[in-house]
């Protein structure tokens, strides 16, 4: 129980800090901007981890969901919601973006019933391309020129709140029967089915939740940049999320946070290298993969993310195991 208090206090302190930093201008605006990108990257990476890491599928079109979220949220704030009090409607717009993305996630989950692995990768890739292509052909949202008019509603406290919500919800899902079902689908789909799991329902829930948070990230991104166009959400963006994911490690929310942080920071540090930034970054990635093929934190987890009841039981029984047992069965 102690840990829960610590986590609660830590979360509140984090929020206080995220509120105070812009309010008292403790940090350079540029650093604040990087922090907000970091938060968005964490949301993207952690949500992709649900499908790619926990469920072991290979979705390469995460930016497609992000695009849907970005456009839906932007349309809501610019065209639907009233201008005054836009800050109050902002969470609703983000939710709307998330729900829009989740609806497309539902569509993508259908081919996943039959296709797996590389074939599902193509489906998600095609989905990403189709989203981009549709947006380029929709004159209502500016077609290839893009869409603008959003206020800069994304602030550090908001990013913080959404990161916390994302990690919390994903962690809840991962440590439920659905999360166990996802891991079992990753390990052995046929046996998973034979163990009574409704694999379709599990797949749908993974894609829905993953797409929802990608949409949230898109909404936040759009209201940070105040301008979006279809090219921002192409396959390169998806690749970027994949890199953060595999850098941090599969099936680990902690890993996603670490991966997104390292990637964001390294990219900022390498900014000084100009054109060679994108030459050095993949080299770092390749070296990492050669020496740690499972990513930095693959299949591991921060203990504060694990439900305390599981943790408690494991600790209890681990200590007991060390005591030699008198009547061991032969």
């Amino acid at each position: 129980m102690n840990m829960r208090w610590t986590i609660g206090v830590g979360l509140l302190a984090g929020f206080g800090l995220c509120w105070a930093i812009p309010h008292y201008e403790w940090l350079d605006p540029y650093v604040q901007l990087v922090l907000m990108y970091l938060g968005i990257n964490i949301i993207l990476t952690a949500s992709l981890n649900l499908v790619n890491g926990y469920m072991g599928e290979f979705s390469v079109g995460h930016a497609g969901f992000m695009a849907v979220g970005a456009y839906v949220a932007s349309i809501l704030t610019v065209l639907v919601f009233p201008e005054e009090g836009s800050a109050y409607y902002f969470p609703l717009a983000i939710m709307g973006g998330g729900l829009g993305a989740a609806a497309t996630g539902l569509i993508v989950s259908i081919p996943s019933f039959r296709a797996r692995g590389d074939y599902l990768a193509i489906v998600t890739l095609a989905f990403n391309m189709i989203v981009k292509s549709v947006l380029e052909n929709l004159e209502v949202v500016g077609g290839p020129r893009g869409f603008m008019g959003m206020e800069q509603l994304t602030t550090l406290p908001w990013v913080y709140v959404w990161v916390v919500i994302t990690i919390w919800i994903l962690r809840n899902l991962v440590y439920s029967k659905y999360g166990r079902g996802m891991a079992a689908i990753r390990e052995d789909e046929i046996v998973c089915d034979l163990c009574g799991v409704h694999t379709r329902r599990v797949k749908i829930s993974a894609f829905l939740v993953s797409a929802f948070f990608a949409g949230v990230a898109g909404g936040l991104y759009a209201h940070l940049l105040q301008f979006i166009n279809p090219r921002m959400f192409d396959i390169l963006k998806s690749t970027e999320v994949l890199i953060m994911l595999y850098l941090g490690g599969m099936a680990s929310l902690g890993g996603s946070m670490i991966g997104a942080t390292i990637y964001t920071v390294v990219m900022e540090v390498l900014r000084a290298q100009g054109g060679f930034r994108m030459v050095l970054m993949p080299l770092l990635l390749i070296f990492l993969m050669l020496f740690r093929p499972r990513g930095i934190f693959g299949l591991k987890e921060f203990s504060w993310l694990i439900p305390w009841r599981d943790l408690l039981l494991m600790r209890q029984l681990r200590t007991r195991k060390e005591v030699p047992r008198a009547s061991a069965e032969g």
Partner: protein
Amino acid sequence: MHLLKAEHVTHRFGGLCAVSDFNLRLEPGELVGLIGPNGAGKTTVFNLMTGVYEASQGSIEFEGEELVGQSPSEIHALGMARTFQNIRLFKKMTVLDNVRLARYAKLGYNPIEALFHIGRFRSEEKKILAHARELLELFDLAGHLGELAENLPYGLQRKLEIVRALASNPRILLLDEPAAGMNPAEIGHLMAFIQKIRKDFGLTIVLIEHQMRLVMGICERLVVLDFGATIAEGLPRDIQSHPKVLEAYLGEETPG
């Protein structure tokens, strides 16, 4: 009433007839052995019973309910669990989660409750954790509960696979070569183990096995398959001297 009744079950892969006109009746509490030479179609019979394959012809009834056409998870929910010839645990999941997963369908909470850890989620997860712990303690696996299944030694992996099958409280347990890779002493333990779980869990067991000592030692009835067809059925001691069985295993006696 029979617990399970398979009638005229036939299954073809393309042109190949893997199982032809297979019949089986199970009484509650029975321990039946399914034997036959390699490639006789034994595992295919298990796959047909559990819904991995859908029988081309015939019917399989579980307490009057038709299984042919149902999905593996539906059949599992009726009370049929199995193990596999080559161990198929969820390797990168913990021992605890392997067991908890098998109770997926028994957990009565919905996705919303799961997303927020509210409502029935807490009580149900508490129950399942206690159940998994009890089961693992019963089988002396509790000390390994937080380990990844792939890190267990071979013998414990075999055991965990059986525990996982038992976790859903099945009525019928199908064991596919449980003694594979075991030495004679281990087989002795396994025989006692199977008898014990049958009694303690009130199971009806069908097992596929090549180890004649185990088959003859614990099975009450044997069904012999060859080329997908039942060639003999009866008490172990009758089967031992059945001419067709000898022929299937040893080949036809050449005259002269």
